């Protein structure tokens, strides 16, 4: 394959950080709760990629096992979050985060 001047390591790190940043941006800015959750998944993927890169770089299986844990946890979290959102949407009639103001101090 044609190899570019950039090192494999640097590129992968760049991609994972980009993924994380985009996820964070989406999570904080999107008004709809579901989209925020999706961006959350993006952030997690960014982290996973980061881990895998270094696991390969240091050739130790730890990174990969941690990757697996994150996947598991992400799955559980997504399930719970989504069902909560379903109830919230039933309750508040919409998924928009701004409507949930009941906890005002």
């Amino acid at each position, binding site marked *: 394959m044609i190899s570019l001047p950039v090192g494999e390591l640097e590129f992968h790190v760049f991609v994972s950080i980009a993924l994380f940043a985009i996820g964070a941006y989406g999570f*904080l800015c999107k008004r709809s709760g579901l989209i925020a959750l999706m961006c959350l998944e993006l952030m997690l993927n960014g982290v996973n990629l980061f881990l895998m890169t270094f696991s390969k770089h240091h050739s130790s299986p730890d990174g990969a096992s941690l990757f697996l844990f994150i996947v598991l946890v992400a799955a559980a979290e997504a399930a719970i979050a989504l069902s909560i959102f379903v109830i919230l949407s039933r309750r508040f009639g919409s998924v928009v985060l701004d409507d*949930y*103001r009941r906890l*005002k*101090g």
Partner: protein
Amino acid sequence: MIFEGLRWILLAPLLGAVLNGVILQNKSAKISGLVATLASLVAFGFSVVACSQLSGLNSAPEQNFLIDPLFTWMSSGHVYVPFNLELTSITSVMLLVITGIGSLIHIYSISYLSEEESPWRFFSYLNLFLAAMLVLVLASNLAVVFLGWEGVGLCSYLLIGYWYKKPENTAAGMKAFITNRVGDIGFLIALFVAFSFFQTGDISRLAERVNDYAFLSSGVPTWAWYTFAGSLLWAATAKSAQIPLYIWLPDAMAGPTPVSALIHAATMVTSGIFLICRVWPLFAMSPVIVDAAFWIGMSTAWLAALIAVSQTDVKKVLAYSTVSQLGFMFVALGAGSPAAAFFHVITHACFKALLFLAAGSVIHGMHHKQEMSLMGGLKDKMKITHVCFLIGTLAIIGFPLTAGFFSKDMILAKVFAAQGVFGYILLLGAALLTAAYMFRAYTLCFWGGARSEYAQKAHESDPLMYMPLVVLAFLSLFIGWLELPEVFGHFTKITDWVHSSWYGVGVGEQAHLSHLAEWLLMLITSVLSLTVAYYSFKIYQRNPEFKILPEPLHKWSTNKFYVDEAFELLLIKPSMKAGRFINRISDETTFNGLANGSFRFTRLSGRLLALFHTGSVQTYAWHFVFWSSLIVGAIFLWTL
């Protein structure tokens, strides 16, 4: 020599007071008066026995006193105060005076208070006063003397405020108690100096301190001697009503007359001088203080005499005359002879009590009217009172061979010996003023036409009242014989009694006067005072409103030289205002403010924090991400 009887002298009036005050409380003056008089007579009996016991004792000067150890009142560290009673020669005389005149006054007041509604209160306070005075006299330790000292102050407060319905009586009582308390601070300072520097409170051991050389050289700082003597003088000025702190005595006339007779003439006011006589060797160690006493006495004698001249209320005249006579006694102390002062204490007790009781019977006859302008022409309506009042007046102005003559003449002689002609002339002036105002009072009361219907209807009081008058008249005539000047033969009872009570501590002899000088002095004083008395008698018969003093001085003297107002303005009002101001600043604004402020602050900060809970999920998320990344970044940079 141990003698158990002393405690009974003290317990009798105490029991009387408790019996009357707490248990009996019955309304009739007769019964409660009887109980009280009985108690004081028992005390008188026991004191006579004790004095005879003492005079029988003729051991060495150091041992000739009776002791009756009761219990230790308090002892901790360097303060050891045994509650012992002690009878020395000087205290025995004072004891007889107090219990004797006290019993007479008890008898007198039975009829004086016949129509009061709660006489038991009066008699229980009178007995309590007697007990406190006896403690003051019999105590062997200065701290126990202080117990009597304040007890006497308390009883005078209670008795002055006896008719408590009228607010000015209770105000006078409070004024008396607080002015006495100012003096008590001086007494306390003297006690502290005694206990910390002289290591003892016992009067006998204090006197011994003066001549045991080891103690003197053991480095007692000179300021200790001066503070001791100075604060004792301060205490005496308050109790014996001298210049700065005499303001309470004239107002104390608000109390019933027997009270004024007993407390504010005979016993309490002289306790200051009596105390100084007892610790005289210590007092004489600081000559500056002795001179101070001289000048305080002189100025009080003059000021009081000037005020007495223009007073219209008979009791006020007698009150100011007491203050002026006390000034005489201070002058005697200042001239370095406690014997003369003590002799004048005794004679003054007799004739001043006589004058007060006579005035009391006049007032009683005049249905409690004290204004001399309403009196006049009482000599034929109240014959016995008139005669007794006359004897009293003669005694006080120093009519030859009466008590006043001997004691005042002795003071004048001592002053002449110690201070020279100038001091003598000053004192003579005061004596002449006394003659003037005493005869003014006498003629206004008894001579001339009756100036009001009360005077017309005045009647002689019943035997219970004039019998003590007669006894006191007899006393004030013949008590002078106890101490004759050298000219009339060597009969100096009082001086040896006073000197022997200092437990053998000798004090330097005063200068001696030649016989001629003594004759001359006696002649001048008696002649001058008699002429002044005769003139004032003549003038006041014709014109009751005659003013002895020139106009500006007269107006000033009627208003008592504005001393009360000055005290109020300069001392009492500013300190009260300053106190209120300081307290408002320190308590209300700063500390309370601080405390309340801290409550409000916590509530405020609580409300402030609530603002963070906006409720929008996203701000929470934002904060969460922002702060966590900040922290991670910080840790990351930190670990580099």
